């Protein structure tokens, strides 16, 4: 439609995400010694965290504090959505029994059956991912806490015996390192910016801190988090932990609402082709 001569040689434009298939050439059989049901459950945990947080982040689209931040948050949401797709597809391949039953002639692929046709009580994401969006300080703080833990998880997952998970981790850790840096940079900026931004970010941290224990962070993550807190001149809040049971599929109303919206079109057309 657009002639190439008009657009010229675009070698110097750096368009483009990483279009390579991260699973190219990867052995997809579940290796001996790995329990397929446990593998699927693990993939659902990490896949649901990514899917639900991505959904929350994409709510910022056209509403961010500036165009640059709109684009940045969409990039994070897209990275997480990409991770979610790979992980849900892996869950379905490892243990097909986790995929909800659809009519025989339904063209819905497994990743979409998992995303759009499970009920809230079948989701394994942590509570922090599903909480309704607050202000920008809340989004940044949540992204900091979640990405710092997820990065640690992916860094150890690089050595997972399942070659697919290892490949997903190898790709995802670079993305997550960026998410963490982005969030940490903003966290420090807001904490040391103006009186108002500091008030907001401390309030956000207080609100989210009750859900921190549910993330079950390893000791080295706690160390990194303390470094960020020190740079921001923030101390760990004293808040009673909430009973976060997202991994056991116990969720807040917020997830019910999020899924009702997310799944509405797909469920209205169970035989639809998209």
């Amino acid at each position, binding site marked *: 439609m*657009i002639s190439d001569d008009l657009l010229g040689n675009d070698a110097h434009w750096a368009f483009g995400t990483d279009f390579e298939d991260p699973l190219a050439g990867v052995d997809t059989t579940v290796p001996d010694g790995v329990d397929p049901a446990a593998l699927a459950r693990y993939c659902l945990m990490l896949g649901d965290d990514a899917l639900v947080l991505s959904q929350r982040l994409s709510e910022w689209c056209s509403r961010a504090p500036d165009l640059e931040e709109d684009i940045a948050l969409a990039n994070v949401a897209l990275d997480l*959505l990409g991770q979610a797709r790979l992980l849900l597809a892996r869950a379905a391949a490892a243990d097909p029994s986790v995929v909800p039953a659809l009519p025989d002639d339904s063209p819905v692929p497994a990743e979409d059956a998992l995303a759009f046709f499970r009920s809230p009580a079948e989701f394994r994401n942590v509570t922090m991912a599903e909480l309704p969006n607050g202000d920008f300080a809340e989004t940044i703080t949540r992204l900091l806490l979640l990405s710092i833990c997820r990065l640690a998880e992916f860094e150890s997952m690089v050595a997972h015996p399942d070659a697919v998970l290892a490949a997903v981790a190898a790709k995802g850790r670079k993305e997550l390192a960026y998410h963490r840096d982005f969030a940490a940079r903003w966290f420090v900026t*807001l904490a040391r910016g103006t009186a108002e931004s500091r008030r907001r970010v401390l309030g956000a941290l207080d609100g989210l801190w009750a859900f921190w224990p549910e993330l079950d962070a390893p000791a080295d993550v706690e160390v990194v988090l303390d470094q960020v807190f020190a740079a921001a001149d923030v101390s760990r809040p004293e808040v009673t932990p909430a009973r976060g049971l997202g991994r056991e599929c116990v969720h807040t109303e917020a997830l019910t609402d999020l899924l009702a919206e997310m799944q509405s079109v797909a469920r209205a057309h169970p035989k639809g082709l998209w």
Partner: protein
Amino acid sequence: MTVTETELAGHFEATVARGDRVEPRDWMPEAYRKTLIRQIAQHAHSEIIGMQPEGDWISRAPSLRRKAILLAKVQDEAGHGLYLYSACETLGTSRRELTEKLLSGKQKYSSIFNYPTPSYADVGTIGWLVDGAAICNQVPLCRTSFGPYGRAMIRICKEESFHQRQGYELLMTMMRGTDEQRAMVQESVDRFWWPALMMFGPPDDASPNTEQSMAWGIKRNTNDELRQKFVDMTVPQARALGVTLPDPELRWNSERQAHDFGEPDWHEFWAVVKGNGPCNAERLDRRRSAHEDGAWVRDAAVAFAEEGAR
């Protein structure tokens, strides 16, 4: 030795006549600068407001693949707005000023984004028809006389062709789906066809600025020329898709080697331009609250940067 205004004007006109680009630090007539600011700003605002009608479907996209495509597309539109605001800033205005003029109604954006998007098929139709019409409008602008505008357009056009393709592909896929989906596609095309034709602006005889803009090389084709081109391009695509276009007067004219087509409702066009379209208030409200709610964040970042500089 001093240079007179007449000599400068002569040099400017020669540059444009040669088909050369005018660059930001060149002397340019004040009216040229104003026309450019108005046109580029309107274009930038359209990209940013244009995020909303489709953006509303990101949360409900019916497959994860479609969700990713749609989010990436709407994100691209934010980028387009950003490139265009930057081009406009080389003319001596700022993004904040431009945003304030959008919010106060002093500057406009494309009327197409004041139409609602009640159906998921609208995501496809917007990609196909709205981005398609935008491409017809924008490809000639890659050769526009003002350098920064032309360069922004080149980058934008690259991405727009992806937008049009993803929209058309969504509609094609839906047409292969259920009867309900096919009906959704047709209903959406029926709603968007006329507004898409209006995107090229009023007919040439009611477009007083066109002549001057063409003389300055800001504009490269008249509204009616581009509208004709769009219709000729779209009719075979509609046939391939299996939808009808809602215009009983639409037929091939072998004498003209072009399609004859009906007249859009220009009353409706002017009503929407004047702010009385179905979604004008809603679109500006969203933009306003994003801008206002973001103020404390932008201020905090400036305060922190100043602290670091001390």
